[in-house]
């Protein structure tokens, strides 16, 4: 157990340390997401009657875009600085690399989301600072990060990677996005806790499946 998690933590810590020093990913993605929220506001112009419909969708679309950017940055940084080869030379199995990258990407996305949430609930006048939303946020973000990390490792090696990642990423996260929007709407409504639990279980199952599958397949994306 230890010989698996220690290198995982080391890799994740390396990413976090780099981010703490440069603050490159979190600031840029945060600003991007805020801009997206503002654009959505003017595109949809929600009224007090429609806000309940619009808010969960807008929130999760903004998070999905932000998530794809975070995922893009995690591997592009490695590629640009040539440290991907260094990572691949690490004497650890490839699923260790995957879990390290998954944890750092997951944390970055959570930080961005946590920062947007209060701003969003003020701008859209939606009571989103609800503890029930925490579970939705964590499980959905884990689902995003699980496939995002895998596809990021693929798309970083392709031509026009900025296009390739969203093309692969968005169809893949549709189920978990549906679950997140539905669960957020329930949280806002305050109705039907039973359905909330079902959607949470759904997101959990999605995350479990794709974390496992991606860990198994990750090695095949990094061979030269």
């Amino acid at each position: 157990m230890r010989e698996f998690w220690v290198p995982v933590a080391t890799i994740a810590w390396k990413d976090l340390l780099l981010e703490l020093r440069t603050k490159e990913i979190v600031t840029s993605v945060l600003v991007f997401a805020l801009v997206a929220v503002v654009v959505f506001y003017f595109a949809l112009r929600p009224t007090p009657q429609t806000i309940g419909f619009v808010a969960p969708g807008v929130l999760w679309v903004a998070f999905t875009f932000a998530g794809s950017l975070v995922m893009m940055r995690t591997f592009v940084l490695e590629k640009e600085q040539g440290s991907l080869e260094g990572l691949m030379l690490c004497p650890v199995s490839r699923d260790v690399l995957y879990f390290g990258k998954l944890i750092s990407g997951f944390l970055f996305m959570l930080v961005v989301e946590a920062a947007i949430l209060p701003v969003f609930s003020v701008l859209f006048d939606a009571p989103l600072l609800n503890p029930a939303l925490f579970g939705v946020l964590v499980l959905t973000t884990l689902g995003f990060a699980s496939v995002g990390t895998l596809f990021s490792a693929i798309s970083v090696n392709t031509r026009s990677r900025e296009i390739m990642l969203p093309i692969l990423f968005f169809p893949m996260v549709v189920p978990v996005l549906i679950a997140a929007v539905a669960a957020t709407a329930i949280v806002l409504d305050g109705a039907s806790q039973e359905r909330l639990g079902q959607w949470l279980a759904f997101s959990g199952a999605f995350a479990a499946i794709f974390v496992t599958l991606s860990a198994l397949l990750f090695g095949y994306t990094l061979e030269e």
Partner: protein
Amino acid sequence: MRAAAAVTLGWVWVALNALSAIYALSKTGLGVMWFAELLVVALLASPGALLVAWGRRRPQRYEEFMQLAKQVLLPITGVMMLLTLSMVFLWVPTDANLGVSQRIFYFHVPLAIMSLLPPFLVSLSSIGYLWRRNEGWDALSLSAVEVGVLFTTLTLATGSIWARPTWGVWWRWDPMLTTFFILWLMYLGYLLLRAYAPSPDQGARYSAVLGIVGSVNSVIVYMATVWWNTQHPEKVVGPAAEAGSLDARMGVALLVAFATFALLFAYVLLERLSLRRDEAQVEVLRAQLEEAR
């Protein structure tokens, strides 16, 4: 040895399908779709595995078989097309509720069911490729995806055209429709990924990974959307069908139409496979030319 294992697996699959067909027949008397699936699987699964093994070990026999298969399949498919059309337009009764537009059923349903085959083929052959690194598996999954794009596009188009007179809308975010749409998008992503891959080898590996993850995802998309609502009719054929859900003549016509589209699928897949072989040969020759320079 490997070929033997693959063929055995294929036949196990066929046997399982035969059992389920018998079960379906005993239960409802309408095992049409399961028989049709049996036909398709028998057509594709075990010969498909054989082709992959042959393509590597005995290129000569592979080539001969492909030629023969295409020559046999083409006329049979043509005759079946004519038979299907004559049945659909001359023989089957008109539906009491939907009228003439119900005749779209005989095209739409087989197309839809056939477009569920590529995800299976792609995931199996992708696993095969990652495991064995045999180019044949890669060719099979690429061909299956391309044919899958064709079938999925047609399913979406015919379904949309049918939806207009019956539901009153061209499109609904119904679970079936959404699933097919996402599947279609993932197929396109797969083809783009190959086009943008830096080398053929990397393209094959990446798309194999995508093939596995995407096939799993298409099932989950269906699960997610089914929780919202569905507008599709309940099953009229297969084990879940109620007895008497489908008029007998309609069932027969559906079976024939299904066989036709299965044959079409097989034919187009074989054509695409042999095209892939030529593409590979061109690549090899170009590399040789570079060496000779």
